[in-house]
Each structure stands twice: as C-alpha cells, then as structure tokens.
C-alpha cells in the first residue's frame, strides 16, 4: 500500500512524462501542418505530404491542443491532461477519416473512376501521426483511472 505522499510524487512524475510526450506530438503535428499548407503555396513538394491547406490547418489545431496540454502539465496542473486526451481523440478522428477516404479512393479506382492509386499519397501524415498519438492511449487510460475520472 502506497502512502499518500508516494502517490502524489508518482503522479507528478507521470505528469512530466505526459508533458514531454504531448510537447513532442504537438511539435510534430505543427510541423506537418505547416508543411501541408506550404505545399499548397508551392513552396514545398513531397509526395507523402499532400497539398491541402484545410487539412493542414486541422493538423495545426491538433498541434495546438497538444502544446497547450504540455504547457499546463509543465505548470503542474493536472487538468492539463485533458488536452492530451482531446488531442489523442482528435488525432484518432482525423486518422480514421483519412483511412476511410483512402478506402473510398481505392473503391473509386476499382470502379474505374480514378486514374491512379498512389499508396504513398493515400497514407497521409494524418494517418501515421494518429498511430503515434495512439501510442499514448494506454498510458492515458491508466492515468485517468488513477484520477478516478473513468
């Protein structure tokens, strides 16, 4: 049985862990968000990164969520973990969205409506970034259980 003191220290450590993870994810999302927007302006071109301003902005929103979370957690406020939860949720939403779109594109190709199907283009950053974010999910779940939020 852990003492209350031990429990408090443990949770502080965990918070730091989430803060770092969140900051890293936030930075990566921000980077890709900027890249996607820049691709539209023609300043950047790389096949795996689609030129999609709207989607880029969405990535920036996810980035902002993670970064805000990191900031609050570093300030020591447990509530900051909410941002991480929402960040992962948003990441999952967009990841799932683009997986479904990839499937739809594949169907279109099979139906003969699309000219080509580029696997590289379909596996957008949103998808594998979501997988990266999802790595945090089991830790988040455990942390939330400890906080008795779920």
């Amino acid at each position: 049985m852990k003492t209350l003191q031990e429990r408090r220290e443990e949770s502080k450590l965990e918070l730091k862990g989430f803060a770092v993870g969140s900051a890293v994810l936030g930075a990566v999302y921000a980077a890709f968000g900027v890249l996607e927007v820049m691709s539209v302006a023609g300043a950047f071109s790389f096949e795996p990164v689609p030129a999609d301003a709207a989607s880029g902005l969405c990535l920036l929103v996810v980035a902002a969520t993670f970064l805000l979370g990191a900031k609050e957690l570093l300030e020591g406020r447990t509530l900051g973990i909410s941002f991480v939860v929402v960040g992962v949720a948003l990441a999952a939403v967009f990841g799932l969205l683009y997986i479904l779109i990839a499937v739809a594109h594949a169907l279109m190709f099979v139906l003969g409506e699309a000219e080509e199907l580029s696997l590289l283009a379909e596996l957008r950053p949103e998808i594998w970034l979501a997988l990266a974010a999802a790595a945090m999910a089991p830790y988040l779940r455990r942390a939330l259980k400890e906080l008795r939020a779920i």
Partner: protein
Amino acid sequence: MEEIRRIREELSKKLGEDLEVLLPARRYEIAGEISRRCLRRREERLTLTDMLDHVFLHRALGIPIFLALMYAVFQFAYSVSEPFMVMLEAAFGWLASLAGEAETPLASLWADGICGGLGFVLVFIFPIFFLFLALAILEDSGYLPRAAFVMDRLMYRLGLHGRSFIPLLLGFGCNLPAIMATRVIDDERDRLITILVNPLMSCSARLPVYVLLAGAFFGAYAGAAIFSMYVLGIALAVLMALLFRKTIPQLRGKPAPFILELPPYLRPTLRSVLLKTWQRGVVFLKKAATILFAGALALWALSSFPWGVPLEATYAGMLGHALEPLLRPLGFDWMAAVALFFGFLAKEIVVETFGILYGVAGEEEIQAAVAAHMTPVTAFAFMAFTLIYLPCLATFGIIRAETGSWKWTLFAVAYELALAYAVAATIVAFGSIVWG
C-alpha cells in the same frame, strides 16, 4: 364515504392543489430531505466530462476545434460517399438506357425525366446519409451542446443573444425543425432574429448542389469547398443577426444572458446513431417520393414541350431566358436560372433540374455538362447563391407560422435574395480580379 369525499375536497381547495399530485410531491420532498442528510461527497474529483469541457470550451481552442471537427464531418460525408454515388449513378444510367434509342415522349420521360431527373438527385442520398451519420455521432457523444455554447459565447460577445446557436445548429439537417426549435428562446426579439437568420444555416437539401459543383470543379478540394459553404452560412448568420439587432428598431435592445445545460459526455451507441441517421435520411426519401417526383414530372414536361422543339424554345427555355438577364451578371446561364427558380419548391430540385435539362438536351455526363457551362468562380458563386437566396416552400411556411406575420416572412425572402445577389456578385467580382 360522502363525508370522506368532502374532507378531501376541502383539503384540496385549502391547499390549492390536486391531492393526487400533492401527497406524492410531499413524499418526494421528504425523500429528498432524508437523502440529503445521509449523503456525503467523498472528495472533489475530476470527472471525464469536466476534463473534456476544459478543452472543448476553452476560450481560444474551443472554436478552432469545432471548425476542425466540422471540416472532418464534411470531408467524410463527401469523400466516403463518392464510390457509392458512382455505383448508383451507373445503375440509373443503365435503367435509363432501357428506353433504348427511341425518341418518343414516353422514352424521354423515363430516361430524362425519371432516371435523369429524380434518379440523378436520388444519388445524393449518400452524402446526405453520411453527413447525418457523422452529425448523429457528434450529437450522441454530447459534443454538440459544447459547440453551441462556444458559438453562443462568441455571439454574446458580439452583442447577440445566447442560446440561439442550438436551433441554428439543427438547421444543418433541415431548417424546419430548427425554426420550430426557436420556441425555447424566451425573448421575442432574440427569437425573431434567430428565425430570420436560420435559413442561412445550410440544410441538407443544399448539399446535392455543393456536391455536384464542388465535385465538378474543385477536385481534391471538394470537401473543403463544401465545408466553406457551411462556414459561410454560419458567418453570414452571425453577421446578419448583428446587423438586424443594430439597425432594425423593433429588434434593438440588450441581449438576454444565457444559461445552458451541458449533459455529460457519453459513448455513442451504434443503434442510437443508426436510428437517428435513418430517421433523418428517411425524410429525404419521403421528399423524393413526393415533391421531387412531382417536380421531376413537371420539369420534364416543361422542358419537353412543345415537343420536338430545341431545348431553348420549350416552355422551360422560355422561362429561363426570361429570367436570364437578372442573373447574367453573376455568370449564370438560363438553365441555372430555371434550376434556381424551381428550387423554391425544394432545394434538391436545383440539382434535379440540371439533370433533366441536360438530359433532355442529350447529355450523358451531367456533371461534365454542368461544368462546361460554368467557370470555377461562377460555380462557387452559384453554390453561395443556392445557400442564401430563398427559404424553400416548407421553410417559408414555417416562418410564416412561427412569426405569425407576413411582414417578417416576406422580409426574410427579400433580404435573402438581396444578400444572395450581393454575395454572389462579390465572389464573381473578386474572382475575376484575381483570376481574370
């Protein structure tokens, strides 16, 4: 027994309430009192709902998250429905071809009127279905009241009333129940403004127009183009509400403060989501079976008779050419004019009309045909025009019913026409400056 009844009536009169109701009520009070004295909160504890609200209602992040989620919803509805639309379109194409090469009115009615018109618009059940599916998930999760709260907060800061975004949000499905939902707004002025502004919230009937044009012109950005229509609608709704409050005398005054109840977040169940989606999708199918079907027949008749005459000389053509001068500055041709004209009955008819007119004219690929008659800029302007220009017949009726006045109903039509024209003109002007 008589005496007992007398005692009862006396007591009831003295306390001013039906005893059948009063006694149970007193019991509840006692139960409440007892439970209050026996319950103790263990510790102040974070609930998942509070945690999520910390983010979703955040002063800075709340609205961007809302917009991002909405974008995901529309991107989903558009992209994932594409393959299904293609398949259904092919099916209708095959059905139409059953009429063979015959040039008789009956064959044309089947191929161009029914398959080409009604069939063409039925294809759009898929984006509508997927849109409703996504919205149902958001609704069941408990997120939508947060979106409403965040938007209301913004509107409140702009000097508008709170508590009106939820009825507006309902307008994404259909403006009719959304306008009826304004009954929850106490202040008559607030309510009137919300009703006037409601038709600017893009309803599902306008989605086929967006999908058709965005798909034809904007390629990979189709989802974003459609999304922009919804955002445009929201922005105009907020702006017009602001404008009305500041200028129209009857509507001046301080906005009422709002208290919104936020239900806890829940995991959406598959059954409930599918049920909601089905219920709303069925409305479209019912519309198709009735007003869209009738509209298809009427339109086909107008565009086929006098028989044998080139399309421009039929009744529909004559109507279109009569209206065309009004819309030429916006880059719309006579066919677009006819489509918009009949769109008053139901906005889906706009797409149906294109299907019939181009079909009668002998076009196979409707989308390509429409594309040939417009430029990307005019297409975008057309989408905006469809968004704004009129409430449909049903909405017209409900505005009249809920406001109880012809004055406001006609005002709604008038301002929307004017606004539609102004916005479309601005888009065209801007477009020609930037792209020539």
